[in-house]
């Protein structure tokens, strides 16, 4: 069997880690869907407050997105600016 170098091992593990990090995308999906559902409910109940409801909903959705963005940043760091390679 061919010898696996430490560098190749780190690169492979980083790619898998980036994929695993993006599992966090589930959270913002649920959160934003919930916010959008409640927003639709609110507009259905009070159509005259649509502008306010949409603004509040977008703000809440953006805050719910934060954890997903953290996961994305970690995945990007693992793929393009890997700090572990330098530890070899």
């Amino acid at each position: 069997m061919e010898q696996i170098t430490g560098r190749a091992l780190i690169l492979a593990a980083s790619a898998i880690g980036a994929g695993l990090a993006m599992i966090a995308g589930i959270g913002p999906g649920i959160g934003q869907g919930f916010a959008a559902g409640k927003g639709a409910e609110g507009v259905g109940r009070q159509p005259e407050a649509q502008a306010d409801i949409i603004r509040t909903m977008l703000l809440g959705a953006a805050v719910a997105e934060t954890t997903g963005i953290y996961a994305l940043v970690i995945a990007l760091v693992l793929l393009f600016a890997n700090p572990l390679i330098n530890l070899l």
Partner: protein
Amino acid sequence: MESSSGFGPRIIWDSGATVPGLEFLGTFKITETVVVSWGIMIFLVVLSIMATKKLEKIPNRRQLVVETIIGAVNNLTKQTMGEDKMSFAPYMGTLLLFLAISNVLGLIGIRPPTADVNTTIGLALMTFVLIHVSGVRRKGIGGYLKGFAEPLAPMLPLNIISEIATPISLGFRLFGNIVGGLIIMSLVYSALGALSAALFGPNIPPIFQAAIPGVLHVYFDLFAGILQSFIFTMLTMVYIAMAMD
């Protein structure tokens, strides 16, 4: 941070050695981000000067557009921050215009400055300073420090951590959205280029790159870009208003 895969901003000018007269800066590189940011700033300044020349009582078409934008920003600030914080409206309007223009620049093939973490963290740090300076100015230093120990004194470390997390989440939210879109767009472009090279040979121009990415541009550059600039501005307003009340 040098990335070998090439999603980082291009380096326009490398000083190499220290520049005469600017030795205190050391060696530095000027990236695409800096150049495009200065371009947007010059564009906004020139636009503002030209738009506010010869203002009249009965507005012409140009003045009407400007008044609509200013009115919308003032209205948004009044609704979100309250009547007493209207002095923030010019900053919020500038922030909104700068972010909207820089996010939309991806449409014409220029790398948006907000796809660089330095820009977004810089803007988020400006928000951070504004939050705390206006908190101290409104409540006085005692009232401001007391705000950290609310509702109970044991909450002090948690409050400090959440204050530090504010600019980080603000900066990375914008950066992540824009750079995520940028990476997906460049992956789609290279996939379409490879597809047309595989089908028609490498000598034909990559015709699949012509119209197919348009839909994705509308989503990632127009929709997400405008939405994220709006959200950054809104969150800045909400955080400042929260620190002052």
